[in-house]
């Protein structure tokens, strides 16, 4: 797309829905990270502008609040990716590799293991055999298994989000913003001291 003869590479000629479809159906985690990051960045930008324009806040307060907002967005995205999604993946794999056993589904898994000469359920992880693959032949059990798995991983990922976004992030962002504020105030103090000394020397 060209505007006044300038090429704008960011705006696609045609919105490609097949890419969106692929991302939404195959890479759910990626999709979640993208939407979460975009939302967080936009919200942070809006709030930073709001703080900058607020006339009732002192310069010292702004020096803390703006880096606090930036640090919050950055830490939230990073920590969310590792802790929240990590916990979700961990729960999914605990179900998939038979570490969390569901008695009515375990019968099918045991049967499959006997048929394929797998002695221990630990070997499922070593061989990369997932329970959802085993249950593909029985659709009702497959749906049941998916329900338990999705429910558990939803709860765990919410717990992860609460711990990461509501407890760890505020502590870290406050430390970072306070350090930035102190640094800026010290720099200003040094400058005013220098100005004061140079003025005194000039007067002498």
């Amino acid at each position, binding site marked *: 797309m060209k505007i006044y003869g300038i090429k704008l590479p960011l705006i696609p000629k045609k919105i490609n829905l097949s890419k*969106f*479809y692929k991302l*939404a*159906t195959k890479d*759910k985690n990626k999709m979640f990270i993208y*939407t979460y990051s*975009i*939302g967080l960045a*936009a*919200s942070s930008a*809006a*709030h930073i*502008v*709001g*703080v900058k*324009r*607020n006339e*009732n*806040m002192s310069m*010292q*307060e702004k020096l*803390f*609040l703006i880096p*606090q907002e930036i640090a919050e967005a950055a830490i939230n995205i990073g920590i969310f990716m590792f802790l929240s999604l*990590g916990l979700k*993946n*961990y729960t999914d*794999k*605990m179900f998939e*590799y*038979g*570490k*969390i*056993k*569901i*008695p009515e589904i375990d019968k099918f898994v045991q049967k499959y293991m006997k048929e394929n000469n797998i002695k221990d*359920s*630990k070997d499922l*992880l070593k061989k990369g055999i997932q329970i959802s693959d085993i249950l*593909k032949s029985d*659709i*009702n059990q*497959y*749906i049941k298994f998916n*329900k*338990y798995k*999705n*429910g558990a991983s*939803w*709860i765990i990922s*919410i717990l992860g*989000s*609460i711990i990461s*976004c*509501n*407890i760890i992030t*505020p502590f870290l962002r*406050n*430390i970072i913003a306070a350090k930035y*504020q102190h640094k800026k105030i010290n720099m200003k103090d040094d400058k005013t001291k220098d100005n004061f000394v140079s003025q005194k020397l000039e007067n002498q």
Partner: protein
Amino acid sequence: MKKVSPFKTVIKKYYNRVIEKMVHYSPGISLSNKRLKDSFEKVAKYANNVDQRAIIGITSILTQPFIDLRNKNVDEDTRLTSFARTLSKLTIGTCVGIIVRQLCLNVFDKKKKNVNKLFFENSKKNFEAFNRYNKRITLITALGTSLGIIVSIATNILIDAPLTQVSTNFICKKLKTSEKGGQE
């Protein structure tokens, strides 16, 4: 061929390996409690984006402002302003976020119900049909989430940020005057 950055693949490889090791060393659990199983089933069936936003939003209102209030690395004024701003930002953000997400979900709700009806009322269920159903549902959810993101960017700029500033100034004024009154 599509180029994949080596940094990304290495991170992904080690990330998966760490999780697999964690699974390997975790003790096995048997999920025999009926109540727990029922609750997992209910969550999988009914829980959505709105519930997620509500749970995270409410817990954030209960924790984040008080963490700011106990921040001893800054002076009293900054601490109070930061408390007031976090409290108002989270309260307004949660309320607006829940409304926006609910509205966006409602747009696609009819489609989702139709897809659900098509699959669950069909007597011939097989793995391929389930996969197709699953893909449709995730696509509808993704469309709803994306619409939600676009709308929430607009509401963030038009509603959240200005309202947060007004509310922060109001709470700050109240807090600072009450503190001065207390000192006198």
